[in-house]
């Protein structure tokens, strides 16, 4: 037996056992430190929020009364759904289009790399900046009125765009090049290769990435604060002010009234459940896809 083998085959000494135990302990401690706030948030959300939930909580609009019945959060739920839907209609096709350009046409060209760089920068821009941008460009200039739901949706779309682009680009890059070659070699024009082969193959991944972007947009307060503003009633008119869950929470939580604060908790729980549902759907679609990253 060689000297090396003899040395390494000796039983593990007490010192090594001790340092191993310490290292494990430290890592475990950090994990617990990180987990505790997460569990605490969920615990408080359910504990405080579930009490606010009732049928009328979801079916009535806020009344705006400080005393007496404060009403429910119907307008906030509808407003969030409407604005996020409009934002998705803007951001998802545009984002997938940019990703298609980057992967199928731009490739490693200087322009494509510049676009990638700006997309990365945009991913890191704080959400309040998007709100401020839309406020300056569309609200202050009084384009078709002042505060409007569609302006809020534009701010949310800008926020979603880099997330959609980046996730779609990753998935499109996962589509094997051999499939593109096979289709091209059959005599397919490039646009048909993209629409018939590349997009269908990448679709589950694109949907997943887009849903995660939607989930992120649904929880944003800052972009809506000075674009869609706050209002009590429900409406389907996107040219008017529109309520939203994050803004409802923002307004209620500062009130010196227990029932309003409790409504904020209820709204927060509603928002988390909505986002959780979206994330779950995204996970399910991703699991069924053959191209998960």
């Amino acid at each position, binding site marked *: 037996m060689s000297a090396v083998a003899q040395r390494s085959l000796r039983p593990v000494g007490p010192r090594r056992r001790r340092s191993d135990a310490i290292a494990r302990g430290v890592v475990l401690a950090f994990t617990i430190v990180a987990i505790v706030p997460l569990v605490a948030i969920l615990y408080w959300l359910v504990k405080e929020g579930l009490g606010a939930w009732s049928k009328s909580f979801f079916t009535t609009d806020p009344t705006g009364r400080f005393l007496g019945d404060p009403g429910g959060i119907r307008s906030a739920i509808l407003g969030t759904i409407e604005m996020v839907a409009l934002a998705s209609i803007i951001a998802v096709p545009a984002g997938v289009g940019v990703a298609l350009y980057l992967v199928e046409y731009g*490739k*490693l060209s200087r322009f494509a790399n510049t676009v990638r760089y700006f997309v990365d920068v945009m991913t890191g821009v704080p959400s309040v900046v998007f709100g401020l941008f839309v406020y300056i460009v569309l609200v202050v200039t009084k384009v078709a009125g002042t505060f409007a739901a569609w302006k809020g949706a534009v701010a949310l779309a800008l926020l979603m765009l880099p997330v959609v682009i980046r996730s779609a680009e990753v998935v499109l890059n996962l589509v*094997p090049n*051999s*499939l593109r*070659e*096979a*289709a*091209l*070699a*059959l*005599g*397919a*024009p490039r646009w*048909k*290769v993209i629409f*018939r*082969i590349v997009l*269908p*193959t990448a679709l589950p991944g694109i949907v997943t990435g887009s849903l995660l972007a939607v989930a992120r947009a649904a929880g944003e307060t800052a972009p809506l604060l000075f674009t869609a503003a706050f209002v009590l009633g429900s409406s389907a008119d996107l040219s008017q002010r529109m309520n939203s869950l994050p803004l409802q929470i923002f307004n209620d939580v500062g009130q010196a009234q227990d029932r309003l604060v409790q409504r904020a908790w209820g709204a927060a729980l509603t928002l988390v459940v909505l986002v959780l549902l979206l994330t779950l759907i995204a996970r399910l679609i991703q699991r069924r896809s*053959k191209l998960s990253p």
Partner: protein
Amino acid sequence: MMPDEDARTTPLDAPPDTTTEMPQPDEGAAEATPKGGSPRELAASPDRKPPPAEATAPGISLRDINAYYGDNHAIKGVSLEYAPNQVTAMIGPSGCGKSTLVRCINRMHEEIPGAHAEGSIMLDDLDINAKDVDVVAVRRAIGMVFQKPNPFPTMSIFDNVAAGLKLAGMRGVDVRERVERSLIGAGLWEEVKDRLSEPGVGLSGGQQQRLCIARTIAVEPDVILMDEPCSALDPIATLRIEDLIQDLKERYTIVIVTHNMQQAARVADTTAFMLLGELVEHAPTEKIFSNPGDTRTEEYVTGKFG
């Protein structure tokens, strides 16, 4: 019966190996010789069918082809005739440019960023490498089967075969009839006729490759290019594809790139040997393997290098 048996078992001994970067003629020759299958004897393969009496497909003639990857000069002035309804094998060590040359023929080479090719490629009397020629039309006339089977993962068996018709925008074609005929032509019909709606990627590797061949012949090209079509397959699947190539010869001009010299000897009417981007020799397969005109060819086919 015995020589036939031998010729049929030899390919099983030298399975093409995708993980091996360089072809290993030494091993192939060493294994083949004791069984009475030196490349020399294999050249007269009883599996090979004669070409049809009258040409049913056009030939291709390459004139002074130069191909580049950026500044890298990969193909250096190759001129070569592919005779109608014949199988031409392209052999040579890795990196000699045989795949690149074949990809020039259906203009797939230029799909690689930075790559381009010069020279004339005459299909009948039309230069398909000219700038103003529609590459989409070229690729409809010249089909290609790739190294790894690549059925479309989102499509059923039926849709995979029909894909070319739809992608190429062919109208007025009875799709069902064409799919059936192509699957029969690719020798896959009997195995899949009861499960045409199942996904194409659910088939075995060899079946997938025959599915890809069916997909290629469904658009009825004149020429079929095969870029190492068997290198990802086991020996039995390889043999089926080789038999199929003999049948396809009736209707198509075929160019096959192969790392496997026994395969070239079995399937090809003529064989072209390439080295470092140049064409060394193109001659009837029997001559290449028994009496090559160039010493480099002889050294390669006898396993002195590669």
